[in-house]
């Protein structure tokens, strides 16, 4: 009798220790998986950087960043991406200019004015906009935006302007979502204080709500910048892809992303390294943007918890 109990207890203890052992390994496994994201980011940076190092040792940084001569197939090849940097900047700024008023209005409308059905309809539309693949935007751009630009402003139609119009639509959901959250987060008491003094709706929004939500709105714009700068497919189809220095909004241009994707199919040697170098530049820029947003949102979260 004692033997069987003893056996049973022994088995139970063994079971328990197996279970505890599993627990410990499970914990370690989970630790690894959690760090996978960070690991991925680090690996990506390392690999791309590694591929671009041969380039940096050959071509001076100054030429890379500030020269507008991109001629990788010439007899004396030059690798200046300044035109692409400028094009990316112009396209992004224009996209922001078009997108921010609409995005902020939508965010304000959703948090201050919207009720029930209208609000949910609007929200679902924004979700849907966010889910539309970039190739569809590109196709729409070719079929509608490019001819529109061509017919109203002349030129070829394939232009920085077309690219920024399409990008503006693409970054709308990004800006709207984050802005709305921060506008909503402005405490009811602040709004009431303003209304109790006889302010109109717009005065309350302009004077109290928007300034209080400022950091969130700025974060959303920075996220929008990151999204716009990183977009490839849509801008490739409507931007014209001419590796020239853009002289106006209707001239064709090539962004950093377009450069990478276009030349990658046939590049080799230093040319390919140059593309990876462009990639690392892009990546670094976006990483910095994201770090800024992350730290700003962490800081404001800490402040509000105080």
């Amino acid at each position: 009798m004692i033997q069987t109990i003893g056996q049973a207890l022994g088995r139970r203890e063994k079971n328990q220790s197996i279970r505890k052992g599993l627990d410990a390994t499970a914990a370690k496994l989970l630790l690894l998986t959690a760090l996978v994201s960070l690991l991925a980011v680090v690996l990506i940076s390392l690999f791309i950087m590694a591929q671009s190092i041969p380039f940096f040792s050959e071509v001076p940084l100054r030429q890379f960043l500030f020269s507008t001569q991109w001629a990788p197939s010439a007899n004396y090849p030059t690798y200046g991406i300044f035109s692409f940097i400028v094009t990316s900047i112009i396209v992004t700024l224009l996209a922001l200019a078009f997108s921010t008023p609409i995005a902020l209005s939508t965010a304000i409308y959703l948090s201050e004015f919207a009720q029930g059905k209208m609000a949910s309809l609007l929200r679902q539309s924004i979700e849907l906009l966010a889910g539309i693949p970039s190739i569809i935007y590109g196709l729409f751009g070719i079929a509608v935006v490019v001819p529109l630009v061509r017919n109203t402003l002349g030129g070829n139609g394939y232009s920085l302007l077309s690219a920024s119009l399409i990008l503006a639509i693409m970054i709308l959901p990004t800006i709207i979502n984050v802005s709305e959250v921060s506008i909503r987060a402005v405490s009811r008491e602040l709004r009431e204080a303003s209304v109790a003094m006889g302010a109109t709706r717009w005065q309350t929004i302009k004077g109290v709500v928007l300034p209080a939500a400022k950091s969130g709105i700025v974060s959303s714009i920075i996220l929008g910048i990151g999204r716009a700068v990183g977009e490839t497919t849509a801008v490739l189809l409507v931007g014209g892809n001419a590796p020239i220095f853009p002289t106006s909004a209707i001239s064709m241009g090539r962004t950093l992303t377009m450069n990478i994707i276009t030349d990658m199919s046939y590049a080799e040697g230093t040319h390919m390294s140059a593309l990876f170098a462009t990639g690392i530049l892009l990546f670094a820029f976006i990483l910095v943007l994201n770090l800024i947003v992350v730290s700003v949102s962490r800081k404001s979260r800490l402040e509000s918890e105080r």
Partner: protein
Amino acid sequence: MVQINEYPEQAVDTVAFSVHGFNLWYGATQALKDVDIDIESNAITAFIGPSGCGKSTFIRSLNRMNDLIDTVKTSGCICYQGYDIYKQYDPMDLRKQVGMVFQKPNPFPMSIYDNIAYGPRLHGRPPKAELDELVCTSLQKAALWDEVKDRLNKSALSLSGGQQQRLCIARTLAIEPDVILMDEPTSALDPISTAKIEELAFELKKQYTIVVVTHNMQQASRISDKTAFFLIDQDRCGYLVEYGITEEIFLNPKDKRTESYISGKFG
């Protein structure tokens, strides 16, 4: 004593608000029933009663802050200066004349100066000199000037709780209202700040009409001239039980319910 009629144009001088048969619903639930009360000018009126009895709801009806909730419906009449505030008054104009201080101090995340200047800037574009003076006067009236006169440009959030509440009072004073509504203004503050604000209210009543909602009966008995006692009935609807001179309410209440509430809290 002035005869108070149905249409109180004659009683404008001594009565700030004249309320007749006021009812309020949140959707289908009634929250206030048949409130009849005349709130005296240049006096402090206190609303007391157990929590949930509608005193906050009622005070918020006086400056139509309840409009911000879409499901609110009202009936009856609240007359300010002889005009029905729901039918004959634009809410933004009303709020210029009937200011409000809230339970939790809610200064804007701006400088002290900009906080006070916010109200005047809403309603006009006063020249800087005028604005400076207004800020100074308001802060003085709120007994905060000496403490902040050297740091008007610092953020209002750097002040202590009690100072912030006085800032909110100064902010309200800056729009030069006639009435100041206070919804439990000291319940979030420490005793010293509370005393300071009670002192302030006492001073302000000379120039303004003050209505205070408080759950602290000692406070009511200390500072108010008139007291209104609210209760909640079995349908969770608030109603006015008794209204009169503070001393009488506390020492010689006419209604049994008033008596049991007061003795319950005091005794």
